């Protein structure tokens, strides 16, 4: 046993940890305790549906889908600094592509999933083209236009999208195994979300991810240091929309019905709210944000059920309250904690880093 290990404080995260190689220094989970925490969290995620009520599993499924979309948007808005108000529509592109491929052309889900991602990536990159010349406000406008135009297409290209009636989708299957219960969906989504998370987490540590952040922080300086702005901005749009397309596909095959009203500008705003509340430029934060934004309406609904005795018509104002809460939370986080829930989580972790002897 190395000498350091004996003297370790068993609770302090970084006490007695000596890094002797670059690999150790670059590890995502550098200390034994953080690896332990990871293992514990994984165990909770894997065991959760076996213990919980199916209703809570369905909530977790919605969170997982939202998390994939939010990670994607965060790569674009949080890491590259390119604001997008069209993410809801890009999610819709994925859902409709996969819906058309599986239900009209009989393509299996596992082929349609990446194809839908690619279709969304192409559309996203197309609407990202103006980012060559535009930034900030003007780019936000371009993506807003993308949202409106794609929404229009969903309503009017009836041959493919079914118009306002939408499309019916089937549950995915693998061999003879059909994903038709909440628990089965849960493990599928858990695996895909984990893959999306790990890819994004690592992407931000590569040349590409560093280039994204350089563009966000100061695009001119990034260009001067040899980062091809156009190339990386389009790449950010494509990667982000790929995530959106995957999220849309999962959403479609999970609910088994899609129609244009799922992919409106309020969906886009919801996703923006997720990454702001979760933390811009933080992959973990996207998941916190997705969970937060999915749980809020559920909590509000619970609250309204409890209050129906007091206010008889509260069910009718619940949608309005939801919208108000979304908006108000965005503003509150922007003003008081611009780095979001991820920052709060980091504060908690920092407190325990050398606890209880933090000096």
């Amino acid at each position, binding site marked *: 046993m190395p000498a350091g290990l004996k003297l370790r404080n068993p609770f302090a995260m970084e006490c007695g940890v000596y890094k002797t190689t670059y690999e150790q220094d670059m590890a995502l989970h550098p200390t034994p305790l953080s690896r332990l925490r990871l293992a514990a969290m994984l165990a909770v995620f894997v065991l959760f549906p076996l213990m919980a009520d199916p209703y809570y599993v369905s909530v977790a499924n919605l969170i997982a889908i939202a998390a994939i979309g939010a990670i994607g948007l965060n790569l674009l808005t949080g890491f590259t600094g390119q*604001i997008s108000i069209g993410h809801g529509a890009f999610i819709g592109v994925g859902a409709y592509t996969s819906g058309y491929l599986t239900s009209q052309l009989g393509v299996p889900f596992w082929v349609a999933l990446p194809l839908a991602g690619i279709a969304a990536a192409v559309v996203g990159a197309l609407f990202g083209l103006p980012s060559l010349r535009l930034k900030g406000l003007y780019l936000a406008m371009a993506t807003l236009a993308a949202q409106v135009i794609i929404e229009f297409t969903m309503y009017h290209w009836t041959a493919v999208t079914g118009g306002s009636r939408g499309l019916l989708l089937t549950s995915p299957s693998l061999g003879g195994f059909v994903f038709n219960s909440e628990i089965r969906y849960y493990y599928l989504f858990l695996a895909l979300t984990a893959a999306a998370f790990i890819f994004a987490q690592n992407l931000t540590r590569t040349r590409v991810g560093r280039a994204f952040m350089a563009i966000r922080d100061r695009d001119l300086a990034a260009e001067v240091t040899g980062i091809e702005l156009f190339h990386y901005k389009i790449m950010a749009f494509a990667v982000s929309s790929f995530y959106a397309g995957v999220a849309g596909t999962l959403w479609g095959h999970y609910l088994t019905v899609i129609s244009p009203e799922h992919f409106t500008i309020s969906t886009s705003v919801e996703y923006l709210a997720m990454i702001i509340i979760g933390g811009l430029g933080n992959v973990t934060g996207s998941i916190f944000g997705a969970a937060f934004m999915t749980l809020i309406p559920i909590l509000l609904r619970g609250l309204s059920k409890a209050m129906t005795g007091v206010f008889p018509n509260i069910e009718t104002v619940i949608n309005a*309250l939801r919208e108000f809460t979304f908006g108000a939370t965005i503003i509150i986080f922007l003003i008081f904690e611009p780095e979001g829930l991820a920052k709060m989580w980091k504060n908690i972790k920092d407190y325990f880093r050398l606890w209880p002897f933090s000096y």
Partner: protein
Amino acid sequence: MVFLLQLIVSGLVIGGVYALVALGFVLIYKASDVINFAQGEFLLIGAHLALTFLLVFNLPFIPAVLGALTVAVVLGAAVERVVLRPLIGEPIISMIMATIGLSSALRGLLQVFWGTETRTFPNIFPQDAINLGGVVVSQVYLWSLGIALVLLALFSFFFKRSIMGIAMRATADDQQAALSMGISVKVAFAVTWALAAAISTVGGVLLGNINGVNISLAHFGLKVLPVVILGGLDSIPGAIVGGFIIGILENLAGGYLDPLLGGGVKEVAPFIILVLILMLKPYGLFGKQVIERV
């Protein structure tokens, strides 16, 4: 031919309303470099306030609008104080997000207070339509065109000549320089938002007279974005010209393409134009070109 003329004329008159709403955007952008995505909600609030004064307090039309203006001015200044001021100096993305959040929050509050059903204004403007050389236009459109033009002239004058207007332009140009010249940036911002809320109230009352007051009025705020981009975000004449061009173009597109594409072209056409402008001439027809140097 009459069809074409009818389309152009109705495009012109709706363009006048666009110009009026666009003015609210331009005002805020000119003074603080912020695009207010909650402009549509401001319209809706203004319309509802005026309706409340008219129907609940039984005031005549002019005092009711004045009452609504007063409340709107207070509200605009309050929004600036509570939401925007803490974010001064934050990156532009925070500002954009804050106004998006504001729009969502206001829409929720509006529905709690005033519900979602459509309300109609009592008849205020004369109901008989006017015949302009074979083209029939209802009077309320002409009134809104006239009011829009008067307000546009007033604000052009305000920004060119009045001390406050010049102070607001200075603030937009360079906040530090403005501060060192003794301009209160806080006051300038508060006045900007109050004025924008007031303009939106006028716009909301006019639009409410045309379409009735419901949540779709709030979407008008987004529909005006192509107008301000076409005209140039910081240009008052641009708002007027852009309003007319977009009004006419969307009417033409709707009139001729709707039968082919199955409706709704009017809603989407301005945004296709928006994408084209952004690709070809991002600062619009009259906007100030921003040149960046390292």
